């Protein structure tokens, strides 16, 4: 599994802080499902290979189950990516 681009709804506050609110993922039946991001556990800026990204470790509620996921925001291309583990 590779990191996959995903759709995200995020808010950008006046200080320039980014907060992802919703994420849209495909379920087992290839149907797009929107999940609310319940909580951001931590975020960190990375610059591997000189490419600036912001990593968010957050939890979503999926089938009544809390799941921890990591998503990355690519600062240059404005893409959101779901980190595969």
């Amino acid at each position, binding site marked *: 599994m590779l990191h996959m681009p995903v759709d995200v709804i995020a808010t950008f506050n006046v200080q320039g802080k980014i907060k992802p609110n919703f994420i849209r993922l495909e379920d087992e039946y290839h149907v797009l499902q929107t999940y609310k991001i319940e909580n951001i556990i931590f975020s960190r800026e990375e610059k591997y*290979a000189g490419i600036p990204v912001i990593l968010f470790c957050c939890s979503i509620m999926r089938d009544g189950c809390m799941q921890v996921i990591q998503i990355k925001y690519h600062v240059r291309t404005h893409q959101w990516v779901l980190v595969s583990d």
Partner: protein
Amino acid sequence: MDNLIFHIDVNSAFLSWEAVYRLHIRGEKTDLRDIPSAVGGDIKKRHGIILARSTPAKKYGVRTGDTINDALKLCPNLVLVDPHYDLYESCSEAFMEILREFSPCVEPYSVDEAFCDMTGTVGLYGSAVVAATFMKDKIYNELGFTVNVGISTNKILAKMASDLKKPNLVHTLFPDEIEKMWRLPVGDLFFVGPATRRKLHALGIHTIGELANTDLDILRSHFKKHGEVIYSFANGIDVSVVEEEAPPNKGYGNSTTIPFDVDDGSTAKMVLLSLAEKVCTRLRTDAAMATVVAVSIVDTYFRHASHQMQLFSPSNITNEIYRAASRLFDELWDGSPIRQLGVHTSKIIRGDSSKQINIFDMNRYEKLSKLDVAVDTIRERYGEDSVKRAIFLDGPIYHMSGGISPEKRKAKYREGIGNL
């Protein structure tokens, strides 16, 4: 106070950078650095050489510059990846940025190595080895690739030190430790290429130490000025300083290996035109004009030939340079199939120098220079391919040959995140 110079060199740069990109950005699980792998050109386009290889590939005897076919014979399970120049630029920039955090005086020596003047930083970072280790680890933690740092009191010794043992190490090579370098084969010395090495071997000089203790007059008589250079390098003497700003280009040139053999003059001239387009665009970007134009040809038998001429007046106009290149080509070419063509310019004049107008020019100069400015502006705004000469439409030749072609800038991945 003694000078303190660092030389920082990225370990198998192109390959490490691709490995980091695949691991952290694309999310692949295998680290290219842990398996026999290499960055190579495109065999079909005859750009088939190894540009960088991993440490496991090195164990199979794969060397940088080998043809891909030779490399595959040495190591059949070699994983080959395409070049990805946009990534290299981004990595190189981030690398230099970190170095500039350590010292205001950083000289980018190439895309993957730099000199850093660390004189007087003892109070900031502690001893040289501590500072270098900190630098090396910071680069690894933040950017994900390993570097070698060489420490000494001048550039040549620092450079030789960073080459000692790889990867991910710090070495010192202060003048009192020069024996470390003297044990090495003479071919390892900076500025000693294969030709010089052969000549030195013929003189019975096999190690750097033997070179350092050879009588300078002997070297002078065999190598002229170059003999003095390698003699002082072998003795660890180098007076050059770390220069932040790159000296201005002394010449501008581009060459290209054509994917097929060219045996007719008109196709060759199209290639020359596309090269002239590239060279002149670069000249105009730097507000420079060239006085001397040279053309070089490599034929299918790998025979090199070149020819040059002086222009009537300095120029950076594509049509003028092209016309000169065509004339040179006609005089030079013996009709054998061509593999590679190059257009090079030198005797550069910078800034607003007055142009000697040719009375027989029929005012074409002014029109052409305005045309070039217009074309440059359009290309800058809308991309290199937004405007091109009609002769290149649907042809096999890219309209601006030479340098890094667009397909080498981006890597092609089947799925996942691909571009930066």
